[in-house]
């Protein structure tokens, strides 16, 4: 579904990615793991067109997308879901969700997708007329995922869905991500929470210094010592399990 080949990119003149390659297969959940500042989010931003790829290719559904404008990529069905803080706080939950379906042409689709999202997250239905600023952290994350689903994507990329959330809520959200995959979507999830992400994913990549360091089946990665090493830069503990 998504294939990244030798991607080089960065911000301004600062290079972050030094030739990362990875592949996300159809209807799978792939976890992209790594510590702070290793380039996880940069890969996502390059895929969604927020920053340009300097070198290398990104192909989605058989088409190269590295030179497309961000809204064209969303139209193709590749949606990045941001962290919960990136909602529009002065708008209601419903307006936020409608923005998620901005690329949809017909209102019927919008309504169907809204129902689908409320099915995954009934909490949002209860709060649909509230301002997004009044939601809790978990609800904000639900809103972000829901907003991502509104445009009928083929694949969603989640940027740290567990960030700053209680374990109970993270479990709930991860269960929903699994449900979303079962309904036919492909998921790429960027995480710092290694254990949780690997429990969820089928396959994992570990990024270090802007390049893929370790990859493999998530069951295998779970017990891989080198993951620990590259993730925490050698010594240190698995504190955020």
């Amino acid at each position, binding site marked *: 579904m998504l294939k990244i080949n030798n991607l080089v990119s960065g911000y301004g003149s600062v290079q972050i990615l030094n030739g990362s390659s990875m592949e996300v297969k159809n209807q799978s959940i792939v976890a992209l793991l790594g510590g702070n500042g290793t380039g996880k989010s940069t890969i996502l931003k390059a895929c*969604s*067109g*927020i920053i340009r790829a300097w070198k290398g290719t990104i192909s989605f559904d058989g088409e190269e997308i590295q030179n497309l*404008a*961000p*809204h064209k990529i*969303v*139209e193709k069905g590749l*949606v*990045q879901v*941001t962290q919960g803080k*990136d*909602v*529009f706080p*002065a*708008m209601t939950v419903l*307006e936020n969700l*409608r*923005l*998620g379906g*901005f*690329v949809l042409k017909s209102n019927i689709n919008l309504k169907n997708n809204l129902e689908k999202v409320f099915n995954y997250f009934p909490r949002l239905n209860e709060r649909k007329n509230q301002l997004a600023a009044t939601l809790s952290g978990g609800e904000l994350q639900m809103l972000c995922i829901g*907003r991502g689903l509104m*445009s009928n994507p083929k694949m969603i990329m989640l940027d740290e869905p567990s960030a700053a959330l209680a374990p109970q809520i993270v479990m709930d959200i991860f269960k929903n991500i699994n449900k979303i995959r079962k309904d036919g979507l492909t998921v790429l999830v960027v995480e710092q929470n290694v254990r949780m992400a690997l429990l969820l994913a089928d396959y994992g990549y570990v990024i270090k210094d802007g390049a893929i360091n370790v990859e493999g089946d998530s069951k295998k990665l779970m017990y891989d010592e080198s993951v620990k090493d590259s993730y925490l830069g050698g010594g240190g503990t698995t504190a955020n399990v």
Partner: protein
Amino acid sequence: MFKKLRLTSKIENALMLTFTLIFLIFISISPDMNLESLKGVLIIGITVGIIYGLVAVGISLIYTGLDVVNFSHGEFFMLGAFTGLTVYNFLIDGEIIYKIFPEAYGWVGYVIGLFLAFVTMGLFGILIERIFLRPLTKKGGGYTVAGMGIIICGFGLSVILQNVAYVIWDPTAHPFHADLGLPITLGGVTLPMTYLWMLVTGFIVAGALYFFLNKTKMGLGVRAVAYSKVVSNLVGINVPLYISIIFGIACALAGIAGTLVGPTYQVVIYMGYIILLKAFAAAVVGGFGSLPGAIIGGFTVGLFETACAFFISGSHKDAYAFLLMIVVLLIKPTGFFGVQVKMKA
């Protein structure tokens, strides 16, 4: 910390209230004070206020959308007035309209003038944004870091547009004799029709803008882009296009305001300068970047100015708006509605 914050805002509100009370006492002891004149001041103040509000909304829209204070905004107001005047003169004085509708009245030409001023200024604004502002902002990181260049560019544009108007319409003051009918009496106050047109059209336009922003898909997109360009990108909004739309709407609002003001005063190439500053004062008073704030700020500035001009002294009319702005900045630096601090990614 929160306690302290709340206390400050309480003090701010108390000070604002004190200032309002002093102002009200001051005007109520004026020898000109009576019910008639108070009504007149209210109506005129609100009329002038809605015009300031429309221009201020444009400034606020551009500020939220492009992160730029558009110092050439007054010139769109001026060009709008000239567009309306030219269209009106062409249709009515040139008697073109009577060839199509023999029964037509002056207001038909005026309405067409208003509409064309709106549309022309909108398109012209988009053109200016595409040609001059976009390349500049791209250098500064694509509409996130506007920088000094764009502010200077705004001033430069203002001078250039004034000179363009100079070449086309020459610098003399043009009277705008809109034939809108006899003055009417409204609750004991005799009001020229031009004021009534300002008042009614101003409210219609403000209402239409509210409807557009809150009830249409495009308005939703405009609000999203105004809040965050990155997140708007991620939900699939064509951000560059929407920035053009924002600029176009803001300039169209200034254009229609210009044609509304034209018949009351006169149309002259220097008219954009003072309205820019007053609308700026209105935007600051209401809370910079807030759209309802801009309209409320417009009313506040309009009412304050008219009241001071009537009850205190008419010869310093233009100073009052800035007096109010300075007082509000001293007491409540965020303005009335400037509580939502915009978070920058």
